[in-house]
């Protein structure tokens, strides 16, 4: 089975990768593709909060592509020595669309996405990546939610 692990450079996406590793059976998984999607027309096309930013330059040299590579590097490292072959892929466009397309192309058996926020904005604003992937993916989707801040 080919598993897609999406990363948007957030800590939550790293947590999602770890979640997969915590329960899945590595002998059933042949390949893992870590996919980072760059959004060319966004203010910040890719924000890497994982690698500490030491592998690419800042300022006028800002390269969102290298930021995406650095983040997927960190997420891929989660699966080091686990079993499945790990691929890193950078795509560009709308994250949800690109993940769904990738899932079709790679004939994926599972897509792992993080559903980031726990704040008000998540409740108010519709159309997040995780939601769209759930609706349109050609395979099962694992949505890893953040832990609630406190129990109500």
């Amino acid at each position: 089975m080919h598993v897609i692990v999406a990363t948007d450079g957030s800590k939550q996406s790293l947590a999602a990768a770890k979640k997969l590793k915590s329960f899945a059976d590595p002998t059933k998984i042949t390949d893992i593709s870590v996919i980072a999607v760059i959004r060319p027309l966004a203010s910040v096309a890719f924000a890497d909060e994982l690698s500490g930013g030491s592998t690419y330059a800042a300022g006028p040299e800002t390269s969102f592509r290298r930021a995406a590579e650095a983040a997927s590097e960190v997420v891929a490292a989660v699966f080091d020595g686990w079993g499945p072959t790990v691929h890193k892929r950078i795509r560009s466009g709308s994250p949800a669309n690109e993940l769904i397309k990738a899932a079709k192309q790679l004939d994926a058996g599972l897509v792992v996405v993080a559903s980031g926020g726990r704040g008000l904005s998540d409740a108010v604003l519709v159309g997040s990546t995780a939601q769209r992937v759930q609706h349109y993916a050609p395979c099962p989707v694992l949505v890893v939610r953040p832990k609630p801040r406190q129990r109500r």
Partner: protein
Amino acid sequence: MTQADVVTADDEDNGLRRSITGKQLFFYTLGDVLGSGIYVLIGLVAAAVGGAFWIAFALGVTVAAITGSAYAELVTKYPQAAGASLYVNKAFGNKALTFLITVSFLSASMAATGSLATGFSSYFATLFDDGGPPALLVSLVFLALLAIVNFIGITESVVINMVMTFVEVAGLLIVLVIGVWFVAQGKADFGTLVEVDVSGDFGSPALAVLAGIAFSFFAMTGFENTANVAEETIDPHKAFPRSLVGGMLVAGLVYVLVSMAAALTVPVDTLAGSDAALLEVVKQGILPVSTGFMTTLFSVIALIAITNTTLVTVVTQPRILYGMAREDVVPGVFAKVHSTRRSPWVGLVFCGAVVAGLLVIGTLLTEAGAGLDLVNRLALVTVVFLLAIYALVIVSCLKLRGRDETEKTFRANTPLLFVGLVGNLAILGFSIYDDPTSLIWCAGLVAVGVVLFLLEYFFGNQTRPSGAERGDPEVVDEKGA
């Protein structure tokens, strides 16, 4: 398994896929340039030059297209998102200069947003018989909506971008059709097209045309924002020169034809006195269609056109701050992105606040009787910043010749670059000579950047990559560039 099993594919099929095609880049350029001024500024240009004001547009767009070719050459060498600051940094390696250019670019973008937002409110008012809600309120709400749209990420749709560009072009086509119709009826007096008004402030024809170029130049700007998508463009070596320069030339052709149509159909005095000058063309009732309907349609199109261009500027500003924050020259909070939306919301709010400040100050000054035309003032401030940046980009382009070149690098025509440099400097010189007070506004905007730098310098934490010096853009990258 070990690191050796990690496969990084490096081809289009499954590895590092890029998404912006040459065609999309062309429409991005066209939309960005077309929306930025002709809807707003044509009256002022007509006032300066007279019936022959199409010449100002033709010359202005030529200078801008040459500058565009310098950008195209530099983009093919350094396909990163940063644009002018990156090129100047490569050419001069001077941190202070790079900082100044980055802040200037940010300021230009903010002033442009202010001018466009004010232009938006002018056209918005034409939808109402009684003038509608207060202009300042409309501008501020417009700004707030754009910031929200940017935060959510709707701006990222390439399709919406294309649709808006088509609408923009359609609006200008309406003006052209009216012009052709008028000419076909045999009512046109072509003598108007060669009339240069020397009775006004500018005594000689050459000076009047130069003034026209300076006033119209805001309409030529915007193409520099295409560097934003450089990194994500498929085959940038081919796509950039074609799409950037091609987009500019098409925009120039449209401008010239629209200016001619406007000059032929509407008395120049009427154009000169109007806030929404292109609307006057539609209001002449030349087409056998209800004038009321056409006026409303055209206003809506103008609003969409202005929105399209403003969106790009609103997206660009937080991106600049993001880069600067990572470099530690402004507070690190600008490098924070929202956890779900991945948008730099602090930067968005900050930029919105600065532009709102510009609008409020401008409106207060106007009401205090300073005789200020806010659209033109902010457009002029934008143009002063951008002309200086354009000139420096051309110099950087020439200075970087022979460095980082491959056989795929696009090479701009060298004699033309010199012409472009002289052109940019001439327009810059005139703009400052004509209205020295614009420098005060420029200084005010640069001061915002300096304040941010000082805040970071005295109170900031280190957010830059380890081992990097403050403000050092050339850090720690072994494999890149």
